[in-house]
């Protein structure tokens, strides 16, 4: 007997035909990743959770518009990006959307307690990420933490690949400089 894991694409097809159970299974596969993406760009757990719920609701409502189920991941993160920036605009309506900054993070991201890394390093990383511009931080989150390719990042962020690379490489230079003194190897 051959067992085949249920692919995301199967779940997407079933969910688009109205299967809530399939959609819930799909959500369970992606909720943690989407939540952490939103947490790292908003810096607030409550906002991240609210946004994640909105993202999955919006995705369900628009699932039939997704022509290629293989493109689900960037499509979902595009919704997440838009929802997050919509929230930023609501909070600071007078500011140009391109200049919108997430709230100062004070970063609500888990550091130290359950990590194999020392707390000093985690705090330093959180602080270094906090000093990046929102665009740079989002580029780092999408590439380093979420593992997207440049083309997918360009699709999510609605900008050219060259812009994505520019943001990411500038961010990496800043992070390298900020973290060099306390790199994992430097901490015993």
């Amino acid at each position, binding site marked *: 007997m051959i067992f085949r894991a249920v692919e995301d694409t199967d779940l997407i097809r079933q969910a*688009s*035909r*109205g299967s*809530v159970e399939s*959609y*819930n299974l799909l*959500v*369970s596969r992606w*909720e*943690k*990743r989407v*939540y*952490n993406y939103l*947490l790292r760009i908003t810096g607030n*757990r409550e906002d991240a*959770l609210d946004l*994640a*719920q909105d993202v*999955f*609701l919006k995705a*369900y409502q628009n699932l*039939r518009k997704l022509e290629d189920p293989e493109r689900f991941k960037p499509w979902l993160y595009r919704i997440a990006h838009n929802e997050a920036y919509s929230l930023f605009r609501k909070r600071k309506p007078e500011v140009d959307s391109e200049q919108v900054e997430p709230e100062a993070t004070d970063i609500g*991201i*888990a*550091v130290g307690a*359950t*990590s194999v*890394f*020392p707390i000093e*390093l*985690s705090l*330093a*990383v*959180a602080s270094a*990420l906090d000093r990046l511009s929102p665009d740079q931080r989002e580029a*780092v989150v999408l*590439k*380093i*933490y979420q593992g997207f*390719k*440049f083309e997918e990042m360009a699709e999510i962020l609605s900008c050219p690949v060259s812009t994505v*690379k520019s943001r990411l*490489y500038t961010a*990496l230079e800043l*992070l*390298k400089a900020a*973290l*060099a003194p*306390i*790199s*994992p*190897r430097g901490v015993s």
Partner: protein
Amino acid sequence: MSCSPFDLRDYYLKELTDPQQRQVEVHVKDCPACREELERLSLTQAALFSLRDEEIPQRIAFVSDPVFEPSTARRWWTAFWGSSGRLGFASAAMLSAALLISAYTRTAGPTNAAGVSSTEVDRRIQQAVYASEERQTTKTTQLVHDLAKQAESEHTLRLVAESEARFAKEQQFAMEKSVGNLVSPASN
């Protein structure tokens, strides 16, 4: 400034094509500066990974609520029109059904112009056959009866003729006898 044939950061992030990746690998083997640069990128990424993903504080799940969902019929209809495979199958099924119906009706005999069904036609034919048989039987009976009557009549006529012939013979004999009597005394 890197002396690598391609951007070392693209190489590190696996954004180059396979041949390009191999070219950089060959270069890096003989270039300490590029190896050092790759080492720094690696340390920076390791530091970033000290921030672990958090568990989502509350699972996201949706319930099937008929108020927010399209009706079953509408979902079916949407799914039906959204699937070219199903449409093709339905067309093929309809064509097959049409062929079957056509074949069936041709075997049973076409419905006449007056709109009488084949069953009704059968019934009427049966009725006509019965009527015809009945008429035939009546005719035969009548014919037999007439023949019998004719035969009886002929028999009677023959008897009458025979009787008349016998009577005539007896009269002639009587006449001859009386003529003989008359002649005999004279001759005596």
